[in-house]
């Protein structure tokens, strides 16, 4: 049985009853995502939440987030995004001691055979992200001490250009090249998993694959025009399922949230149904 973990990202939870962008009640979407996770045929070992957990980083939003995540029957790990406030997050989840008391939210977690290393890409009061020398030095130390196992790096801002102009303007504006140089040195890094983009995007990065995941509620409109308008859309939502296989390594699936018609069999009596 392989080890499975979920990447869920960009939940943008608001205070109960308040709408994101005046239109969108994000909580029911998170309920649906949580339900979809709980109904997976193989139970994941953990859920990693790669930032933008709330919309404004307020205490009441985190209290609501806590309630929304309560039905999860496996541990979950939190990372901040540009919409978060680490102080409020720590206060709302005091038993999540890995968040530390202060400073950057960077930690390591053992998910079965895989070591998750998280990076804090946030910049106070800003939408864009950055990795300063201090954060990168910590990562290098963590990588040097994790040479006995496959590693997955999780962070909010993707360290690559997505071609969605308005998102690239608030992308990882500092430290992306240094991160790529560092990542290229370590062939045990299976993935760099990110949020922020509300879409599934994959790129070659260093010696590995970097990707973003869709969000459980709203997606960013796919528009590769550099001057594209900043817009969201209720396209099918989803999350990533990362499974470790002893012979292949990390295998990543995209799972849409919700319930769908089916399943139906392909075959009947050993023959393809005609």
């Amino acid at each position, binding site marked *: 049985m392989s080890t499975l973990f979920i990447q869920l990202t960009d939940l943008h939870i608001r205070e109960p009853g308040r709408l994101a962008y005046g239109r969108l009640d994000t909580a029911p979407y998170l309920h649906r995502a949580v339900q979809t996770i709980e109904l997976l045929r193989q139970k994941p070992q953990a859920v990693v939440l790669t930032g933008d957990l709330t919309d404004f980083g307020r205490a009441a939003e985190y209290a609501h987030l806590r309630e929304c995540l309560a039905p999860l029957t496996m541990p979950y790990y939190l990372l901040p995004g540009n919409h978060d406030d680490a102080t409020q997050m720590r206060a709302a989840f005091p038993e999540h001691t890995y968040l530390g008391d202060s400073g950057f939210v960077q930690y390591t977690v053992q998910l079965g055979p895989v070591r998750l290393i998280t990076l804090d890409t946030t910049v106070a009061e800003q939408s864009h992200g950055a990795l300063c020398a201090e954060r990168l030095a910590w990562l290098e130390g963590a*990588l040097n*001490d994790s040479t*006995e196992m*496959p590693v997955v790096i999780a962070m909010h801002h993707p360290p690559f250009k997505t071609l969605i102009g308005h998102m690239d303007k608030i992308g990882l504006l500092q430290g992306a090249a240094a991160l790529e140089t560092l990542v290229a040195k370590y062939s045990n890094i299976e993935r760099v998993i990110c949020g922020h983009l509300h879409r599934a995007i994959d790129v070659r990065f260093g010696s590995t694959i970097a990707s973003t995941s869709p969000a459980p509620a709203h997606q960013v409109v796919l528009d590769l025009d550099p001057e594209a308008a900043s817009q969201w859309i209720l396209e099918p939502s989803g999350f990533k399922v990362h499974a*470790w296989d002893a012979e292949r390594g990390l295998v990543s699936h995209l799972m849409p949230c919700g319930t769908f018609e089916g399943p139906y069999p392909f075959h009947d009596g050993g023959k393809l149904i005609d």
Partner: protein
Amino acid sequence: MELERTSVKILQCAKTYSDGTRGLLPSSLDVHPGEVLALLGPSGCGKTTLLRLIAGLEMVDRGGVIQFGQQDVTYLPVERRQIGMVFQHYALFPQMTVQANIGYGLRIRGASPQELKRVVGELLDLVQLNGLEHKRPAELSGGQRQRVALARAVAVRPKVLLLDEPLTALDAKLKVTLRDEMAELLRRLGITTIHVTHDQQEALAIADRLAVMRSGRIIQVGEGEALYRHPKHMFVAEFLGRINRLKRTPQDIANHTVTIAQATVRCPQGLWPELFVRPEDIELKPYDPHLPVATLLQRSFLGDRIHYRIDVAGQGILTAEAHRDSPYLAGDRVSFTIATEHFMPCENDQ
């Protein structure tokens, strides 16, 4: 390859989870430099929690201290503790060869090509994987993968090696072979090792000493043979092997005896209301009216030995084990003896 021999000191370490569950009650334990210590117990006993605390995968409750040698590592994160880990679902790097897997940590730490070659060569010798260095993990057997994982774990000279149910995922026959192999390998490495298992045979075969755990507590620590022969607690006696219980009367307790089938038998001094004895320590003999007598109810031939169930007046049904040539049959009247030193007085809080 010379590895560091570090002591591990666990002082009053407890773990309370966020939902209030106590994974481990305050526990202390000393692991000697270069020793292989097994944490043994049924699931839920706290052995994995204790291992995770030592690894730094969980943080100890306030007040607990963990030391590696002279260094306090209580608040160090996992990646700063210099531990080697081989877990049940250890993961080799699928895209790398055996030698790349073993040498990866050294390469990252900047070892020169010559040093890399030397250390990897030594480790390949040690784990007997010569000739397989260019294979990928998918081409190896379960046992070979296990050995690569072990070699990879020690290549960077960790202070402490942690093994979490390393053989659980393997089939029974392979498990026995690998168990003996691992025992020998750990002796050759001489590294301080903490080994978690629920399998008492695995613990006895691999470890120098065992810490037997139950319900979040360490019940007894000692060498395997000593624990098997002189358990202090009934749980330890029962977990390490099978036992018979013998009841004692107040007169027995006053006289340092136990009454078995109307015969009075001398036993160790102490106020124990019950004594325990292992099946192989009940020695069956031809009927002799001067010795305790029993009726043989059942004889089970197990290949290397014979298992008997005997009915003993005043004590009920006991089990005895004997060599495979033991001649008694169901329905026989037999006698038996138990040597004084084979009575095991234990605490029993169950």
